[in-house]
Each structure stands twice: as C-alpha cells, then as structure tokens.
C-alpha cells in the first residue's frame, strides 16, 4: 500500500493511502475526540466531534471520513476547533434529556467524559425536553431514547458484526430515533439475537441491561476488536 506524507499539527508524518485522517492521527498518537466512531465499525461522520482544519478547505472536516492526501496540512486543535467541539456537545445535551445524575451510565459515559475533557461546563441553548419513551419490553435489555445521541453504533454493530440488522433509524433530523425490527417493541423483535453487542458499544445510558441502577452500567467495547481480529486475522485471544 503506497505511503503518503502529510503534515499534522506542524509535524511531518507518514500514512497509508486510503487511511482516514483519524486513523493516521491515532497511529501517531495524536488524540482527537470522537463519539460516533468506534474502532472496528464503519466510519459515519455523524457526531462531528472529530472536526479538524485542513489547509485549503473553507470549512472544518470530520477526521473519521476524510481520507489523507499527499502534502495535506491538518490542524487537529485550535481555539476555533475546540469551541466548535464544545458547541456540538452542548447541542447534543440540549437535544435530549440526559440527566446524568440519575443515569445508569453516570460516571461511565463517553458523552459525559468528553464534556469534562473538553471543558463543556454549561449548556447555552434551550433544552428541547422531548417527551421520549423508554422501551423495556426486551427480556434482558432496555432502550432509553432520552439518552440516545444517534451515533448509530448500535445500528452498525448489529449489521456489520452480528449480522442481524435488528436496529435501524426512523424519522429525520432531530426527530430521528433508533428502532428495532421496523419500529416494533424490542421485546417483539424476531431478528434480535440477544447478543448484547449494541448495549456494550452504546456510548451513553441509552442502551442498558435491565435492572441496572444509577451508575451501574459499565460497558466494555473492546470485545469488538477481539472478535474482528479473530474473524479477519485469525488471531484468537482473550
């Protein structure tokens, strides 16, 4: 695979052609915050937290879906980028009812952790306070749409890794909502294999194990790499 050279944060670095800016950055241990991205799943570019500045582009570009190019000059962090990232987090919080204090994923939530890391200490926008339901019809798991940020990791892992494609999306824009089996209650789904991968990759408390109390959900998405390495590289390890 041809190697190309580009500049990231004023450092000359090499990357493989076809890699995304995000992958190239992670290969060189340059940290870029992400929310919808998950190693092992297809890139989506939905959350926009990985926005970076590329010389010559009039707007910021998502690092996860922008491929590296020869002589590209990338800036991963500056005042404007950080401000945009905080704004994106504020909008995410304002869109639904996250209410961290009583969430099953409190203290174990990627959204909450990012807010702390990026210094988002308040929300300047009016909360939309949508009236969204809780579906606990599944025997083992529940979905709380109030805490969903539409990263669609659940949709992707179910389709790309488990192969069940139970999850999908209905509606448009901020009215979008993840659904199971063409909008049937999760408990009535015939395609769900009850594998729980969607719960483990969900970055917030939107998908949870039933019976969990506040701060009791501790998710572990690293299983995904193990499965994929086994499948693709025949490397089986615990």
């Amino acid at each position: 695979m041809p190697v190309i050279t580009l500049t990231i944060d004023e450092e000359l670095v090499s990357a493989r052609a076809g890699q995304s800016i995000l992958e190239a950055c992670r290969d060189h241990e340059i940290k870029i915050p992400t929310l919808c991205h998950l190693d092992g799943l297809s890139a989506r570019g939905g959350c926009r937290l990985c926005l970076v500045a590329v010389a010559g582009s009039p707007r910021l570009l998502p690092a996860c879906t922008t491929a590296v190019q020869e002589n590209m000059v990338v800036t991963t962090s500056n005042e404007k980028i950080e401000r945009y990232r905080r704004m994106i987090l504020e909008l995410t919080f304002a869109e639904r009812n996250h209410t961290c204090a009583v969430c099953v994923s409190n203290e174990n939530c990627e959204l909450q952790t990012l807010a702390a890391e990026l210094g988002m200490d308040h929300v300047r926008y009016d909360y939309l306070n949508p009236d969204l339901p809780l579906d606990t019809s599944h025997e083992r798991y529940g979905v709380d749409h109030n805490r969903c940020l539409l990263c669609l990791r659940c949709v992707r892992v179910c389709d790309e890794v488990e192969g069940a494609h139970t999850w999908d999306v209905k509606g448009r824009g901020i009215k979008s909502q993840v659904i199971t089996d063409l909008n049937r209650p999760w408990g009535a789904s015939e395609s769900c294999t009850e594998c729980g991968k969607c719960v483990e990759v969900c970055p917030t408390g939107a998908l949870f194990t039933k019976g969990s109390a506040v701060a009791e959900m501790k998710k572990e998405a690293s299983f995904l790499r193990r499965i994929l390495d086994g499948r693709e590289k025949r490397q089986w390890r615990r």
Partner: protein
Amino acid sequence: MSKTITIEPVTRIEGHAKISIMLDDSGRVVDSRFHVTEFRGFEKFCVGRSFWEMPGITARICGICPVSHLMASSKAGDMILGVRTPAPAVALRRLMNYAQLVQSHALSFFLLSGPDLILGMDADPLQRNMAGLIAANPDLARAGIRMRAFGQQLIRMLGDRSVHPSWAVPGGVRKSLGSDQRDQVLKQLPEMHATINIALDLMKDIHDSFSTEIDAYGEFPSLFMGLVGEDGGLEHYDGKLRVIDAEGKILEDGAAPEDYQRLIAEGEQKWSYLKFPYYRPLGPEQGMYRVGPLARLNVCDFAGTPKADRELRQFRHYGGQGKPVSGSFYYHHARLIEILHALERIEEILGDDILIDHHIRSQAGVNQNIGIGISEAPRGTLFHHYRVDDNGILEDVNLIIATGQNNLAMNRTVRQLAERFIRGDKLDQGLLNRVEHGIRVYDPCLSCSTHEAGRMPLQVQLFSARGELLDEVKRC
C-alpha cells in the same frame, strides 16, 4: 383595623415557606397559615420511567433524607418484583436507615433548633444561629457536628456517597459493608453515646427553662400514626401501621402497606403546595394526625433496646397516665431518644454475622404491577406507591411525605403560638422566632413534602382585614 402578619422566609428548616397571621380590628389573631411555596412535580415526571430507576431518582427529592426515599422506593420495587429480599440486604438497609436517623436528628437538634433551645428565643438574631452556638458552646456544637458526620460517614461507607446514594435497589442492595469499615463504626460508638447522653441531660434543662411556654408549641389533642414492629415495638424500616387517638386508644393496628389508602386521604388548599393528609375514617376536621419521632414513641409499645426503653419510660410521663404525649415541643426530646435507639440498633446490626453473607440482591422481573413501600423517615411515615405496566414502566406515582402529614398540626401550632404571643400590629423578633420555632419542632422538610428543591428561608407578613400589608419580616 384587622391585619395579617407574614413571616417569610421561615429559616432553619429544610425548604421554603412563609407564615401568614391574620389579625382582627382589635389586634387579636383570627387565622394563621403555614404556606409551602415550592413545587417540583416528581409524581408527574416520573411517569414513563422505569421502577428500577426510582430509588436513584426519588433520592434526589431531598439532600437531607435521600436515604428515606431510597428505602421506601426500593421496598416498593421489592413488592413489584414479588420475591423475597435477602435477609443480609434487609439488615444493611436497616443499618443505613438508622445512620440516616442519627444524622438527620442531629442536624435538627444541634444545628437547626439548637440556637433557639440553647441561646434562647429572645437572643440577638445575629447570634441566634449556628455560628452563635459555636461561640457560646463550642464543645456541644462540635459534638453535634461530629454526630451528624458519624451518620453521614456510615451512609457513605455503604452507598459510596452520603448525599443521594443509589445503593438500595429493588430486590436488595448493591454493596455490603467491609469488616474494616464495621470496626471503624464500632470504634466511634462510645463517643456518640457520650454525646447523646449530654444532649439528653441538656434536654431536661431546656424543658425547665421553657416550662412557662412549652404548652404553646403545639399542645393539642390529635391522632398519631407510625409503623410498629410485629411485636408492637419501635420500628423504622418495616412493620405495620398503627394509629392511636389522643387518649392513646388504638384506632388501627396491623395495617399493611396495601391498606394505606383506606387510612389516609389527602386534602388540598389553594394557598399551599403542601397537601393536607388526614385520617380518612374521621374526615379532615377530626382526622388530623401527627407523624415523626413524637408519634413513633407514642404509638409503639416499647423501644426494644435497653437504654432507649429507659428513656422512653421517663418520656411517657409527659403524657400522663396511659395517654400519648401531646405537646409538639417534645418532638425534640423524642428525636434524642430515637438517636439513642438508633445507636443501640447500629451496634446490634454490626455485631450480627448475617452481614458476612454475600447474598444481598434478589434478581427478578416484574411479577406484580403495584408496589407500595412504607418506611419511617426521620420526620415520619413515608409512602411510595407505584403502578407499573408489565415492562416495569411507571403508569402512576403517589408519594406521601412525612412533613405533609404534619401539615394540619403545623398550621394548628402556628395558630396556637400566634394567639399566645402576637399582640397588636408590630412584629417583635423574639415573638416571631417563637412562631417559627413552632414549625421547627416538626423539623419539616419542605423540599421533600412538595418534592421540591429549596433553601431554608421564612417570611412573616402582617395583613389587615382589607388585605393591606402592615408589617413584614424576611430572613434568608
């Protein structure tokens, strides 16, 4: 010309309130009202959530007694699961509930009412507060703070945090107590016993110094309600409801949680967010009942621990032969006896080998659609009533909070104090403070009772019969 006095905000209580006192043309008190000016709406916005979350959500109702909501909510959840909660989990829940009783009662006696009781009702308002108490009696203030810290620390050991722990869950609890932690608590108990002994002695002096006015702080006949154990003993976590009348006659006994709606009805008034519960069989006029430490000591047959029983026997003298103690000023004393009882029970539970058992949580799904959890909060009997669908989603929530049940009595107490102490149209700080103290004896938690977040302010306004504001005192 008739007038209304308004005390707003009422200070050194948990929550937000004001008092209005209406005077007639000759300056005599014709009416008084204790208004709770907060609203939160937990009963409404919890609908649609899962009952599994309720202990965590309802603990947020209050920062003083989150544990009480945790207990009632997890017990309601136990009923929905319909399985037996493991005995070690019950013992651990009791332990946390006693810790809560100690910290909350210590807060009420030493920190909130202490300045009135120890410095005097007429002391300079600038001094009549916690800082003044520390200056006047630093050892007592320190001991009180340490006692509260003891309770908070035990709650934190179990629930990882002292405020809003989400530790008790439907079916049990999340974590047990380590042996190191148990030893640490046991080591502190002698100091706590010493503190409560000092406070009990002090209480007797306080009764002497208040002897001429003690009967003005809510001395009237009423019903009393509280939980008692299967054997009729003092009970805070579980048990059956008992209601007695002003003569000590038992009106209800052995009432199960499911029966509470037969016993209690909730009245409403436009001028307060706090409801007016009453004993349904006797109606709103005759059905006024009191809950809390005084009621619990009145309804139980015995305390069940040696030192508390000795104090209880003396306490019963205040009521006379076979009669309940009817003066609300004795809530303070009852609180101290309950602290003593809680300390004895904590020692008992910590010495029980059952805590070593690792079975602390039963797992089950929704097996019943109704869950009712009743426990004794520091301020009185607390009810959580949930109706869920087959997936555990809440369809209806009813919370009856201890302070609400004392609402009729608090209004009556304010009236009694106003009639005794308010004369004419000018407000005197010392006299007003007595009216406020009439509320403080109940240690009301208004944040809980309206399920509301709040500060601790009080306001008194004096109105004429034509509604003109004549005088006003505000404190924040």
